[in-house]
């Protein structure tokens, strides 16, 4: 199953024992894997902000600690065993990440600081070498600022045009004019899942059209890789970026996957140690992949943590993760609507299986900032604001939304706590 064809999965596909709530996930035991959920108990933590960053399971924290306590040295270029252990730790994490997204060649995995840096790498390296006056880049109005600003910065220097795929009233991509919009486009920057309204985009469909038009596709998979099975060859994209910290991994590590022949033709992004084969007074020769794009000491412990996060998610099964989130999204949309009625506005697609586990909403005329302040007093963590997607906010006709987002450690109790806290905020502001 890919993010394109995601519907409600075949309930017989995987057969772990099913708790009473109908979910294939044993959420109470998953909750127990995340120390922060039992450390913060007054009031109990109802964490509904995983779209911004997920919490970390013990397995990830232990792996990083173990790395520092047993295996740490700088990687590469040393003959002693410890440096080899560190290098192996880094490279085995790379192989795990490659396997997780269906990439056959670990050298196509570039470790960066975060998805933002990954997109900047594509813009500054591929973009600077391939884009100029008369060219166009096609983005969507769903994009996160991380997939907007780097292109605007580069466009200001290179003089290419930026076009925007518009949205329908329920915040889905309006592709009616896609073929015409693709005319002259060299790169399509596309989110797989909106971090604000949860919209899943038809990646495969757009990729086919883009390739026909001669454009490459750079997929912002920040919100999809942590939550759905992902296979770069099925998606057929050319570049894909995501961040470790949204998928149970640590902060400080992001990923760029790219097709080998594209990465090989691209100039290096940052320069320094580690990314060269040779340096002379009159110039340098860049290293092979992936080192060519990893200047300086890499985030080794973070890579180890990300590798452990991949192991953790794979043990659960990404199909199961996705199924759990569709159920929880359906429950949230149904129960919040039943309980709060017309006072509640939910932005984005109405069908739970057309969206990720992200719900942007408005309640009465209470400003999202005020709403989330009251929710906070009940231990309910939701995020108010523009969520780094101001163009999308303008499409929605709002300055800000309150956003709740869930993950494997959330269950219907968390949704019920959210509903109760929203009701209480109504009593507070308009008794």
């Amino acid at each position, binding site marked *: 199953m890919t993010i394109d064809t995601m519907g409600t999965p075949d309930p017989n596909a995987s057969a772990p024992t099913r708790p009473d709530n109908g979910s294939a996930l044993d959420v109470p035991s998953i909750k127990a894997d995340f120390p922060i959920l039992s450390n913060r108990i007054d009031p109990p933590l109802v964490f509904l902000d995983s779209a911004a960053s997920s919490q970390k399971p013990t397995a990830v924290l232990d792996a990083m600690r173990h790395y520092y306590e047993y295996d740490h040295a700088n990687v590469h270029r040393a003959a002693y065993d410890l440096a080899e252990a560190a290098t192996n730790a880094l490279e085995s994490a790379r192989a795990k990440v490659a396997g997780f997204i269906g990439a056959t060649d670990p050298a196509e995995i570039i470790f960066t600081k975060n998805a933002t840096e990954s997109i900047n790498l594509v813009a500054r390296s591929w973009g600077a070498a391939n884009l100029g006056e008369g060219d166009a880049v096609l983005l969507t109005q769903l994009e996160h600022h991380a997939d907007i600003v780097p292109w605007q910065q580069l466009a200001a220097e290179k003089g290419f045009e930026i076009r925007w795929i518009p949205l329908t009233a329920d915040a889905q991509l309006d592709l009616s004019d896609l073929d015409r919009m693709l005319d002259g486009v060299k790169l399509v920057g596309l989110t797989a899942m909106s971090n604000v309204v949860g919209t899943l985009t038809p990646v495969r469909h757009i990729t086919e059209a883009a390739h026909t038009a001669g454009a490459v596709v750079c997929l912002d998979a920040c919100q999809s890789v942590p939550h759905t099975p992902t296979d770069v060859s099925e998606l057929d994209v050319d570049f894909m970026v995501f961040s470790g910290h949204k998928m149970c991994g640590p902060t400080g590590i992001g990923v760029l996957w790219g097709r080998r022949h594209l990465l090989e033709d691209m100039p290096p992004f940052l320069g320094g140690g580690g990314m060269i084969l040779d340096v002379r007074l009159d110039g340098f020769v860049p290293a092979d992949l992936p080192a060519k794009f990893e200047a300086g000491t890499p985030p080794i412990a973070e890579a180890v943590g990300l590798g452990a996060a991949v192991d953790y998610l794979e043990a659960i099964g990404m199909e199961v993760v996705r199924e759990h989130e569709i159920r929880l999204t359906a429950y949230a949309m149904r129960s919040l609507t039943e309980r709060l009625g017309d006072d509640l506005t939910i932005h984005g697609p109405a069908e739970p299986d057309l969206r990720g586990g992200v719900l942007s909403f408005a309640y009465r005329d209470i*400003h999202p*900032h*005020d709403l989330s302040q009251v929710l906070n*007093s009940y231990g309910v963590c939701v995020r108010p604001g523009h969520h780094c997607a*101001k163009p999308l906010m303008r499409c929605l006709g709002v300055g800000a939304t309150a956003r709740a987002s869930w993950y494997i450690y959330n269950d219907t109790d968390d949704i019920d706590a959210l509903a109760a806290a929203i009701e209480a905020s109504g009593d*507070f502001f308009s008794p």
Partner: protein
Amino acid sequence: MSDLEDLYREIILDHYRSPRNRGELAVPPASRAEGFNPLCGDEIVVYLQLDDPAKGDEAVVQDIAIGGQGCSISQSSASMMSAAAKGHTVAEVRELSSAFKSMMSVHEDELGGTVAGAPEDADLSALGDLAALRGVVQFPVRIKCATLAWNTLAEVLAQAGVATSE
């Protein structure tokens, strides 16, 4: 809930629900400035009409109008500010502004740390209704909401030709 009630005092909610001096003034003769809170998207527009900018500190705020949108803290702060500034001299408005900011900024350095609460002995009497916003200091991320209108006021004063002392 007591912290919350301290944050959202009735008078704040009253200014939020029925904002004073809401609207626009013709520019010119009035001056206009916009302020943004990039974190949460709050937006304030302040229009200011002085009787005579040449009088400098002694110029009187003849009229003031507030536009924009945002949370109850930013909007009520703007509303109260407009009510407090109207009819007063630039010097008085400036004094008010620094009294307000000191009520807010006593704890501004401690962003992220534990915040004890409003300053006990600061002179809040000059602030009138505005003193109701003192509960905001217990919520460091909201201080920027409360001060947005005031930063915008400083800008519109500068536009009107009477630079602030800050």
